[in-house]
């Protein structure tokens, strides 16, 4: 399997090295598509595609619509067409931001995600470099072990981890999450970065070695700048995984002000009130938006992370 191809690269010396295959989403080959006439394509391609896209996007439309719908329109589906909204209101979002601890939860989520991502990027850059380039005795076994760690799901670890977190005195502390999340992120990032590091030619490293550079200098001045797209991919993807993580946060956190968005939305709004839906959907919408915005800026990196981690 080929390593994920990094997006268009700044360094011209590497042009022949890093294969010119465009990453993930773009290819402009027309292939044999010109053989199909438009009516046929409408039925075989566009119609099913539109149906699938509508199903995939409808929950978000529904989420956003509910978040700005006044309460009386939410529960009266006979007088108002539920698929649309008249007189949209920011009441739910206002309530969320100023009457609950939502900003605090958002901050917790961001803080934990960024810290865990930085920690795991640091550890996985070192590990990936060691496995690919230092090639100490047993590097292959270590690489395989890291891949196996990828296959251990949090669902079978959360109970013993809860007792361990308790024993370390980290219960109900964001530190517990910052230390636990890397167990999910490191295997994935290491595996992805190993793929990127393998595409960098040995010659560059040998030149630096001849000029008297140390291992550390080679890593920070030669390898990392060249593997920068890989770092961004791993970072973005790790951030998303942290934001998404649920079971550890649910188990390790108890006080309201320490919760992350996914936990808070599930546990703090569910009070049997018919009118909860507006603020619940507003909470889900605001919790998703940062990730979607981030994703829209880094689609290519995101896709290369996704496919790279699978293809290795």
């Amino acid at each position: 399997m080929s390593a994920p191809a990094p997006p268009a690269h700044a360094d011209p010396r590497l042009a022949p090295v890093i294969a010119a295959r465009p990453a993930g989403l773009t290819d402009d080959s027309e292939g044999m598509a010109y053989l199909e006439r438009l009516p046929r394509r409408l039925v075989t391609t566009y119609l099913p595609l539109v149906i699938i896209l509508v199903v995939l996007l409808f929950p978000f439309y529904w989420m956003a619509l509910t978040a700005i719908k006044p309460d009386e329109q939410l529960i009266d589906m006979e007088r108002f067409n539920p698929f649309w909204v008249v007189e949209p209101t920011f009441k739910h979002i206002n309530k969320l931001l100023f009457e609950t601890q939502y900003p605090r939860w958002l901050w917790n989520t961001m803080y934990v995600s960024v810290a865990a991502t930085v920690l795991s990027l640091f550890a996985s850059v070192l590990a990936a470099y060691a496995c690919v380039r230092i090639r100490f005795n047993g590097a292959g076994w270590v690489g395989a072990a890291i891949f196996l760690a990828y296959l251990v799901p949090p669902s079978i670890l959360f109970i013993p981890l809860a007792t361990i977190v308790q024993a370390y005195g980290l219960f109900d502390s964001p530190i517990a999450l910052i230390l636990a999340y890397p167990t999910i992120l490191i295997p994935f990032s290491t595996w992805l970065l190993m793929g990127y590091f393998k595409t960098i030619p040995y010659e560059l490293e040998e030149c630096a070695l001849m000029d008297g550079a140390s291992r550390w200098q080679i890593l920070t001045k030669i390898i990392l700048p060249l593997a920068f797209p890989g770092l961004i991919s791993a970072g973005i993807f790790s951030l998303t995984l942290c934001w998404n993580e649920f079971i550890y946060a649910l188990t390790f956190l108890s006080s309201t002000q320490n919760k992350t968005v996914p936990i808070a939305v599930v546990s703090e709004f569910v009070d049997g009130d018919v009118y909860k839906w507006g603020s619940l959907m507003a909470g889900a919408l605001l919790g998703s938006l940062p990730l979607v915005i981030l994703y829209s800026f880094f689609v290519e990196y995101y896709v290369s992370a996704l496919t790279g981690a699978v293809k290795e």
Partner: protein
Amino acid sequence: MAHTALTQPAPLAMPTRSAWQRLRASRGWAGFWFMLPTALILGLFLAYPLLKGIWLSFTNTRIGREGVFIGLENYTWLWDDDVFWLSVFNTCLYTVVASVVKFGVGLYLALLLNKNMPFKSIIRSIVLIPFVVPTVLSAIAFWWIFDSQFSIISWSLRHLGIIDGNIDFLGEPSMARACVIFANIWRGVPFIAITLLAGLQTVSPSLYEAATLDGASNWQIFSRITLPLLTPIIAVVMTFSVLFTFTDFQLIWAMTRGGPVNATHLMATLSYQRGILSGTLGEGAAIATAMVPFLLAAIGISWFGLQRRAWQSGGTDR
């Protein structure tokens, strides 16, 4: 050459290097320091908990009380527990149905996306959005869509004249199962479609052209060219998909919490309910540990079952 032999070169430092210098230059030593952060984190928070979980499952530990070794008592208890077996059945049903449908729809979507069309890259980016949004938050949107009173699906079907009363989506066992499986499929299809699409893009168009010239039908092209070349990626993608579906927790917890009458309890949610909410850590750990053999079997089936086809169909066996 003789010249160089006569002029004595400056004595090299090599033979007189101290143990410390040799250690510093050795690959193993450098590798050790580079691996240290990863080894510490994975050791303390992954390997140790994994072993500790197995140990806990043989004790009667409760929250706030150290347990003692009780042998297989947790497991014998579970063996006679109908709810546990129901959760095993639910988990298997959930995994099998969701994975099969996800694979079918995902492959179909990947083939659609692989065609040439306007706004191709934008459409491909949009497809991945359900995967990017946190599962719990989209699960909550589904919870609202499947609401017993204000469900938009019930409303639409009523106004189309198909049903008379509202459907109790999450209140009736088999309906609730169908709903959570649907939500899981919805969330998993983009991942499968985009990764398979990446695989499809590596297939050379000239193969398709050659097959078309030789008179192959669309189905023949798909089954003789696309599928065999895609099998290695399918094996990996489906292994991950099965793994994540089998151990799913958050989707269920956000939508049904295992209800109605345990009809949607997966092993992971049951383990949380028994271990954390009821406080019997030992029993919860036993349920979690009981997932491991099923998990290995599931991974084995999807990995080897699909992988073998790679060489059967003339590909190289890696």
